[in-house]
């Protein structure tokens, strides 16, 4: 445990990280993204394509976590790793459940987009309407 009198450069978090590690992380990330980009030209079926991009992205992310951020279970880094592992499910829950819920909501509440381009409908056609049109008088039925 270092105190503020000791040399801060001796701190464990400074000591971690080497030239090699950072360069490897760079190369893996760049290669993965490059390969994923090239996959667009391959015209794979969408599911295969998506799986490929997801897999390559995961490899890039893991290499960054391990080599850039230097996450491991050493004394200096353990709490960062733990907090990340505890938070990752929240990313997945938030995005996953949202996408799942909206896939059914869209299907059940939206008219198909083809209907949108029905002729004869345009926003400012009606006076007193439109996003910031002049306000009209209220009607009070009696």
């Amino acid at each position, binding site marked *: *445990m*270092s*105190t*503020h009198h000791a040399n*801060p*450069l001796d*701190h*464990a*978090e*400074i*000591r971690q*990280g*080497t*030239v090699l590690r*950072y*360069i490897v*992380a*760079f190369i893996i*990330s*760049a290669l993965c*993204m*490059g390969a*994923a*980009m090239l*996959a*667009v030209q391959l015209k794979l079926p*969408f599911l295969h*394509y*998506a799986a490929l*991009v*997801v897999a*390559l*992205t995961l490899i*890039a*992310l893991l290499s*960054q976590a391990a080599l*850039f*951020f230097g996450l491991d279970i050493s004394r*200096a880094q353990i*709490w*960062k790793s733990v*907090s*990340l592992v505890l*938070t990752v499910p*929240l*990313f997945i829950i*938030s*995005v996953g459940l*949202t*996408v799942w819920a*909206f896939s059914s909501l*869209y299907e059940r509440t*939206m008219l198909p*987009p083809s209907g*949108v*381009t029905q002729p004869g409908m345009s926003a400012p056609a009606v006076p007193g309407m439109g996003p910031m049109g002049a306000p009209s008088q209220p009607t009070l039925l009696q």
Partner: protein
Amino acid sequence: MATMTKAGPDTRLWNPEADEHDSISARTFGFWLYMLSDALIFTGLFASYAVLSTPMNLAGGPGPAQVVNITEGFWQTLLILGSVLSYSLASVALKAGNKGGVALGIVVAMGFAAAFLGFGLHDLGGLMAAGNGPDRSAYLSMFFTLIATHGLHMIFGLLWMLVMLVQIARFGFTADVVARLLNLRMFWQFQATVWVLIYAYVYLMGAY
């Protein structure tokens, strides 16, 4: 359970040595937590992007496939990864207490980041010039917001780097400066991670 142990004559009740806490690791851990909360901001944005990038959200405007430019995006990826690499190498120089090395790494990182931002601005500017600004459709609102939020983080990082260059020159590697450099390293690496996600999800998935 310790609850039941008895106190003996040599039981130590007070611990004067325990007073000094490791301020650098408290600060880096605190900053790491901030980044997790920032990651949740991007989670919210990604969830919104997923919801707002269906054909229903285009309002007749361009969709993902028309908006993204994956080769330009790939150059951006290389630039931001290069910037992170440069900053990370600066932190290797920090181990040796090499002021010049650290400063050089930071300056190169800033250069790469500026080029990255240039690409991004060019992209968004082109869209706006073609009448496809963020007020065109919900999808474009979302696209602009996601890219701009990441860009703002980058600009903030650039500002932070400027401040650190001055502080290194002025104070050398004190505990405060070192803790800030470490936090900035995490912050910068985090921007690359977010960009990789944006590139994979918005650009590559969108271009299909």
